[in-house]
């Protein structure tokens, strides 16, 4: 539904150049909610603004719903008609809502309909219908200043849907909202995604947003996509930085003479009493250092950091056993072993599985540690393994 190939954007001013996008290739499937996460300054806003050509990319192409937008005429804001028509079919919502204070709620929703050239009665009917869809039918005559943040964003969403878009772009749409309002707005986006088959690309710096609504996610750092994929697959991918940040495990790393193991339970394994079975069958004293249970992308996921007595070599059998149970097993300490050089500190090409250098904001602290050089002990097919 949205495809970018090798997108770059360089901002040039008199004395310096900023490469905001550095070869971004992205593929968003029809009907999915795709989250792009990254620190402030990673290039997320630039990316989303390139998708409807508010910003013209320096090179690369953007295709939305089969139309190559970069081939359409006009610079960013001097868009010619075909590009303007394409934009009218792409909804966009913003962090600060961007509603006109001079218009009523209904008037705001009517603006895109005016641009589309609808008649007065048709506009009015459609605007009320859209307000009903976002649960604000009773606020039609209010002015934006009279609404709460969550209500304003709902108006923004209604307005974005006016052109019957197949794609909705959201730039930090919940970042100005409190956690509860964020949840309700994300719930609305989820509903619209399901009911209307709306493809949603959302930008955020909050892991919770990705965790709550996204089917797929990409991690951005310094203008590049560092990692991307379906959220459920990422969680099953050992060494995935996104997975670590989606779901960080707490707890200190192992002392000398002990082996620290991070386990991820998902799908059917989430409820299994694996640890007690390990203790029983292998006669090992397992210490649980940290653990958490959460819902990611609608699935239950558990994370646990355990410590086993003895070195890695002493625990090969136990680790093999854990793998057989269908868990994702990672050994955070393995990165320091000889012969497994740490990734170069800078300029590693994407996707470096775990350079730890550019952990996304939010839980960066904990996640960065956990992600640092995490090494894999193979856990293929963990998803369906125990199903």
């Amino acid at each position, binding site marked *: 539904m949205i495809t970018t190939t090798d997108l770059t954007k360089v901002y040039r001013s008199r004395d310096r150049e900023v490469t905001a996008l550095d070869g971004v290739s992205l593929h968003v499937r029809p009907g999915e909610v795709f989250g792009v996460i990254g620190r402030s300054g990673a290039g997320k806003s630039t990316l989303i603004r390139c998708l409807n050509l508010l910003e013209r990319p320096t090179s690369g192409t953007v295709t939305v719903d089969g139309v190559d937008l970069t081939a359409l005429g006009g610079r960013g*804001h001097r868009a010619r008609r075909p590009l303007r028509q394409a934009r009218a079919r792409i909804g966009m919502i913003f962090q600060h809502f961007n509603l*006109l204070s*001079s218009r009523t709620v209904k008037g705001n929703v009517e*603006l*895109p309909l005016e641009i589309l050239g609808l008649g007065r009665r048709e506009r009015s009917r459609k605007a009320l219908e859209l307000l009903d869809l976002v649960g604000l039918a009773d606020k039609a005559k209010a*002015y934006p*200043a*009279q609404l709460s943040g969550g209500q304003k964003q709902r108006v923004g969403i209604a*307005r974005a849907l006016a*052109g019957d878009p197949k794609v909705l772009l959201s730039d930090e749409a919940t970042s100005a909202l409190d956690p509860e309002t964020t949840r309700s707005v994300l719930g609305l986006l989820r509903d619209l995604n399901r009911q209307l088959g709306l493809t949603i690309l959302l930008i955020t710096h909050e892991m919770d947003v990705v965790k709550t609504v996204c089917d797929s996610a990409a991690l951005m750092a310094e203008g590049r996509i560092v990692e991307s994929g379906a959220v459920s697959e990422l969680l099953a991918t050992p060494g995935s930085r996104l997975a670590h940040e989606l779901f960080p495990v707490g707890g200190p790393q192992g002392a000398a003479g002990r082996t620290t193991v991070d386990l991820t339970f998902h799908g059917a394994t989430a409820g299994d009493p694996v640890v007690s079975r390990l203790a029983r069958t292998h006669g090992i004293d397992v210490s649980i250092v940290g653990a958490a249970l959460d819902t990611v992308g609608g699935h239950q996921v558990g994370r646990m950091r355990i410590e086993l007595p003895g070195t890695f070599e002493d625990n090969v059998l136990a680790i093999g056993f854990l793998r057989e149970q269908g868990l994702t097993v990672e050994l955070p300490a393995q990165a320091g072993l000889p012969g497994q050089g740490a990734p170069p500190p800078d300029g590693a090409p994407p996707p470096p599985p775990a350079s730890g250098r550019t952990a996304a904001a939010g839980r960066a602290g904990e996640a960065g540690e956990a992600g640092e050089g995490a090494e894999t002990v193979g856990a293929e097919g963990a998803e369906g393994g125990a199903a």
Partner: protein
Amino acid sequence: MTWEEMRPLLEQGTIDTLYMTFWSTLVAVLGGLPLGVLLVLTDRGGPLQNLPLNRVIGVVVNVGRSLPFIILMVALIPVTRSIVGTAIGPTAAIVPLAIGAIPFFARLVETAVREVDHGLVEAAWAMGGGTWTVVLKVLLPQALPSLVAGLTTTVIAVIGYSAMAGAVGGGGLGTLALTYGYQRFEHGFTLITVAVLVLVVTAVQLLGDGAVRLLARRTRTSG
């Protein structure tokens, strides 16, 4: 001078002043509004970025604003004569008044339009809107309270200039005050004339403030 003698003079003077002010302001709005909007649109990063044009308009506006009105008026006498046929009287005064007020209002329009949040412009672009949409449906409506405040300031400035125009036979309350006060030593009459001017200015200010309040009401949270 008796009140019976003063009344018709004051009435005619007020009418002339309002007449000059109305037409000059109308021309100032018709000229200053597009100029002010163009100053924003053609500026760096604006949707119609055109720096040479922007500079030219900026210089013209600055020169127009910094020229003392009395000099502008005298300098424009040939122009006025060619347009109106005479350089004396209220109608003739409209020409320099309007030309003086255009750059004045243009700057106020520029300031008002610049204050509009750029995010709103981006939102209009994202909906598929072009420059016209941005100007007519976003910039001007959003700037309306500030524009009305600027209009009030302009009207009051024009009333002030029009009194100055009286010095060279422009007509209106200014001419009355000068001819009767200075030349015939009717100081009482001059005072009354000035009082009427103050009254007119106050009325305009109150009217303008009321309009701005009405427009700004919807941007506040209560109501």
